[in-house]
């Protein structure tokens, strides 16, 4: 008989987080910190190893030709090497808090949509948000210290909203009802705290479900998922303004919330995919088959196009309207600051759209680990460049570049991220073994 009977793998699997891996990750994080120190030292001596970098003192004070709106404050807000380091920490925090929170977002919308297929990969997505707390704390600390806050947030300068002051800026003063420190801190702390709390609740009932079984925990998870989605729907936009758009304080775009969320979302999905593939390489997640990968691959493919769509919609409107206060944003990225942001801007387009589009277009490539790995890595690196070009022109200005400092900061963040995710993965069974839809997911076939 040629019946297509297939073996059903066990739903009991436990990820082992080896102590040597732990040690290596911590060493990598420390190497990252050392790289930042070495890079800063070399730069201050005038040696540049990276690309598109300023050579220390040479360009000091020469970088304001593009930033028309900022010209009147030129002497006050010239960027320094320290700005570049702070810009890096801020940018990586925003990027990694996004990837982390997308894990909870993914679980939440899968609950609300009553999706069955994703239940076998749920624990991977569930592990990501444990990292929210690290970049979240860093963001709050950077905002709490006046000297770093002034580097990141132009609107926090003394007297900028005071008509009597020589630094008075009418446009920024008009935004005072939204951009004031007490309200900003309320929002920032609310994002970090509520996102993290939402995840702890989802996690709690997911683990209770493992222990107790039954449907009660599933229904509770669904209710939490609904509330989380409502909160995230609003905060995904407002956090995009607060964390990224506001570094170019004069400039605004109504598309920015979507653009930012799309960027976070597809980077988060690619991270989930890469984690699954790496776990599978090590012999875990036997239940996850080609069909799950195909579905998640379609997600990445679709949302990388969605990102492009939103990105382009924003670009096209600004291009067409041709208003100076809007086009300054792209001018800074094309020709501003000696053209140093031209390459990151275009690399982001290449890695986020053209490469994944071509490589993940065919059905078969969405079912093969090699192609999916290439696509995911491209999207993850590409969106790093996306966040780089969102923040650097506004914060690091003419001091920006890509060199040891950038690689070091990113290495530190990535190692800590992997550490947190792996640690969280090792704490529970790799499948939600009593999830009501797990059976459906095991037999997933498309």
């Amino acid at each position, binding site marked *: *008989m040629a019946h297509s009977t297939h073996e059903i793998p066990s739903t009991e699997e436990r990820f082992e987080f080896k102590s040597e891996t732990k040690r290596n990750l911590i060493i990598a994080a420390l190497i990252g910190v050392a790289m930042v120190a070495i890079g800063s030292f070399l730069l201050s001596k005038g040696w540049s190893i990276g690309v598109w970098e300023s050579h220390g003192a040479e360009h000091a004070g020469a970088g304001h030709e593009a930033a028309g709106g900022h010209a009147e404050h030129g002497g006050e807000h010239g960027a320094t090497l320290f700005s570049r380091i702070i810009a890096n920490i801020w940018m990586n925090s925003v990027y990694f808090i996004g990837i982390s929170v997308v894990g909870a977002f993914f679980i939440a919308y899968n609950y609300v949509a009553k999706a069955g297929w994703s239940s076998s990969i749920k624990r991977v997505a569930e592990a990501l948000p444990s990292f929210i707390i690290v970049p979240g704390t860093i963001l709050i600390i950077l905002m709490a210290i006046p000297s770093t806050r002034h580097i990141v947030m132009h609107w926090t300068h003394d007297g900028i909203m005071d008509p009597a002051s020589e630094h008075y800026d009418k446009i920024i003063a008009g935004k005072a009802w939204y951009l004031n420190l007490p309200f900003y801190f309320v929002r920032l702390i609310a994002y970090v705290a509520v996102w993290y709390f939402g995840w702890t609740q989802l996690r709690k009932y997911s683990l209770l479900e493992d222990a107790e079984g039954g449907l009660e925990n599933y229904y509770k998870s669904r209710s939490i998922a609904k509330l989380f989605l409502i909160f995230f729907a609003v905060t995904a936009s407002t956090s995009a303004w607060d964390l990224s758009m506001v570094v170019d304080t004069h400039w605004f775009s109504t598309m920015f919330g979507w653009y930012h969320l799309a960027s976070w979302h597809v980077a988060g999905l690619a991270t989930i995919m890469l984690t699954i593939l790496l776990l599978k390489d090590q012999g875990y997640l036997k239940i996850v088959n080609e069909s799950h990968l195909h579905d998640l691959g379609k997600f990445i493919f679709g949302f990388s196009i969605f990102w492009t769509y939103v990105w*382009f919609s924003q670009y*096209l409107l600004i291009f067409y309207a041709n208003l100076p206060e809007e086009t300054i944003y792209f001018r800074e990225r094309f020709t501003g600051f000696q053209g140093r942001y031209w390459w990151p801007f275009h690399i982001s387009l290449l890695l986020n759209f053209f490469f994944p589009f071509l490589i993940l277009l065919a059905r078969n490539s969405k079912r093969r680990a090699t192609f999916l790995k290439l696509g995911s890595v491209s999207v993850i690196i590409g969106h790093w460049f996306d966040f780089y070009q969102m923040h650097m022109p506004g914060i690091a200005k003419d001091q920006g570049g890509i060199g040891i400092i950038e690689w070091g900061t990113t290495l530190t963040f990535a190692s800590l991220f992997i550490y947190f995710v792996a640690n969280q993965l090792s704490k529970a069974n790799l499948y939600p073994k009593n999830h009501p839809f797990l059976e459906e997911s095991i037999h997933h*076939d498309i």
Partner: protein
Amino acid sequence: MADSKYLVGVFDDGDELLHAVEDIRHQGVKIHEAYTPFAVHGLDRALGYSFPRMGVAAFLFGLTGTCCALLLTFWTMGVDWPINIGGKNFFPFPTNVPIMFELTVLLAAFGMSFTFFFMEDMGPTAKPIIFDVRSTDDKFVVAIDLAKNKLSEAEISKLLKESGASEVNVKEV
């Protein structure tokens, strides 16, 4: 006009049909087609169908759309009747992207629909053969063209019965 004679196996359950299809194909019976009220997972593989290359068609239709759109906007806006809009170039690339996008989607969708109707013989003049009308309700039906099989009617009928068919009918078209 009894040109061809079909043997129609009727099953009560999708899984039974799936396994029956595997079994009788294993015995060397060629199956004309299977009809089910809803999609049975794995049936296409059991019937030995290769994966359709509709994606390739979609890509080519889409590419045609992109090129048509580019040609259209280039000719109308850039060559035949250039209009100065906001002091921009006569043929600025970003303004053409929405049109390229729309025409890509439009031609890919139309092209795929018409290709599907053409390939599956579902055009306006097509006359479908209904082997068993209950296959739109709660029965799972497999049709076997006797002329294309070496085995006799009785042998195939026996095989169908053995693999779980609740009834085996003969249909002449």
